[in-house]
């Protein structure tokens, strides 16, 4: 079985703080990480490698520094890494991103394409299904678990709000995986030692077959009209008192707001 996993380098948004005075984002010193849903998808692929001997390729689209997550993927145990990078891809929204990735993926043979459900910097959950559409492949999003019959058929467990669905799909297909699907392994020390000895294939516009008008800023139907920090709400009352008094204060407030009679 051949698996391709799409991964993305993202700022660790849990480390972003808001300046209490200006209300703006503090982005300095925020580390870049492999997107958690993608990393979970990568773990799913590596488990299939451990169990069934799958060949695992990772691909990322991003600026040169995104090389780091490909090295990380090598240290976790992948077989091949591709870095899709070109100025022509810059400024892409989800649709243009999916066009670029689909263009690269057309050049790779696979049975299963895994993406994370969504990236923590955008939270859109769109690129996976959009790639599936461009490649005319079936998709299953919000994947929690997957079993392969060893031949062609996957049985999949898809998360929904009030439970889950069991689905059956034949290879090749596209899935988008939840970070809760599994716990990613750590990089292996020996893998780290070798990570920079291995080749990362760098692909640009010339290596993929996509119409330039579908890429980057030009290929993006959506654009940001404006962006703003959420701002701060004026502070409410704060009490540092004993338990009994605290309970009294809460009850008084509930009465004030007519929640209690």
């Amino acid at each position: 079985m051949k698996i391709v996993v799409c991964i993305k380098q993202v700022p660790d948004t849990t480390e972003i703080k808001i300046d209490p005075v200006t209300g703006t984002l503090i982005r300095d010193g925020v580390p870049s990480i492999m997107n958690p849903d993608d990393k979970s998808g990568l773990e799913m692929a590596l488990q299939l490698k451990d169990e069934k001997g799958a060949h695992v390729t990772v691909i990322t689209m991003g600026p040169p520094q995104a090389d780091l997550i490909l090295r990380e993927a090598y240290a976790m145990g992948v077989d091949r890494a591709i870095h899709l990078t070109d100025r022509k891809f810059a400024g892409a929204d989800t649709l243009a991103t999916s066009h670029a990735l689909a263009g690269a993926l057309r050049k790779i043979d696979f049975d299963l394409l895994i993406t994370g459900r969504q990236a923590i910097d955008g939270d859109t959950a769109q690129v996976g299904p959009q790639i599936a559409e461009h490649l005319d492949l079936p998709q299953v999003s919000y994947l929690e678990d997957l079993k392969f019959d060893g031949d062609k058929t996957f049985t999949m467990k898809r998360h929904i709000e009030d439970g889950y669905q069991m689905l059956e799909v034949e290879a090749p297909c596209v899935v988008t995986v939840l970070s809760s699907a599994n716990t990613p392994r750590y990089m292996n020390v020996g893998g780290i030692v070798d990570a920079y000895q291995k080749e990362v294939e760098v692909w640009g516009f010339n290596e993929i077959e996509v119409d330039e008008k579908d890429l980057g800023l030009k290929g993006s139907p959506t654009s940001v009209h404006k962006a703003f920090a959420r701002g701060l709400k004026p502070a409410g009352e704060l009490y540092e008192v004993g338990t009994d008094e605290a309970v009294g204060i809460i009850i008084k407030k509930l009465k004030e707001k007519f929640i209690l009679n």
Partner: protein
Amino acid sequence: MKLEDYKGIYVFIEQREGIIQNVALELLGQARKLADELSDKVYAMLLGDQITDQAQGLIARGADEVIVVDAPELKEYTTEPYTQAICQIISERKPESLFIGATTLGRDLGPRVSARVGTGLTADCTKIEIGENGEMLMTRPAFGGNLMATIVCKNHRPQMGTVRPGVLFAMDADESRTGAIVNYEVKFNAAKFRVKLLETVKEDNNLIDITEARILVSGGRGIGNKEGFEAMDALAHTLNAEVSASRAMVDAGYIGHDRQVGQTGKTVRPDLYFAFGISGAIQHVAGMEDSDLIIAVNKDKHAPIFQVSDLGIVGDAKQIIKKLTERLEKQN
């Protein structure tokens, strides 16, 4: 693409087992407001099997026309049949804008449709307004809720957005409203139905949607363990409230994902939100800060939750829950 050929605000009506989901009514309510502002019409797209009898109710909730696609292929949601149906409607009817609820279903359907018709999609909108030139201004949180971005789709139609459940308002049913109900025929290409649904399993029998609760008793790390959650249950019981939680507690397995509040969970806006032992990371705050009244209890005086709370108590959440429950039980 001639933009002026595209007209009407289209809303995807999500139903599950024939039951119209609240998010669809919220979208209709908002679409109604936008359409009135633009002197345009609201079209509800109702897809399902044996679903036609639900159409009238959608007119009462704001639709001018209900496009019903009643077909056995649409009995339960899978991506491809629904995508084919919506795309056929788009290509024949040319909507100016199209909104879908940002549920696990909508977030599966939306991007597939947008890629097939080649238009832009704004995910997880929390606000939709009309811009100077009549375009949709779709605002959504980004960077883990740290930043709000307003997105436009200038030269492509329809302007598509998925919208978070629980943030827009449904209008009260107005039975005097009139509108058309159109049965719409879709030519399915069954050869492309490649995902087979084996079964749908519900995990929680008394499923409560926390986005609809009037009062939420929410717990975080400071609640600690299972006993802490049992105590919250007891408190919730005295207040007719529902229990919810921060991501840490969901990850720890104390409570299901469907009760998670925050950027990666649900956005809630109850009359009263209790935050017990929740530090108030931005991811959490993004999902609850619009609650009418926020009461926070936390040991750490500097916890960011106190920046959004109306009433903050520095103290032990577990003890306060216990005492508060006792007092309220006595009162009842």
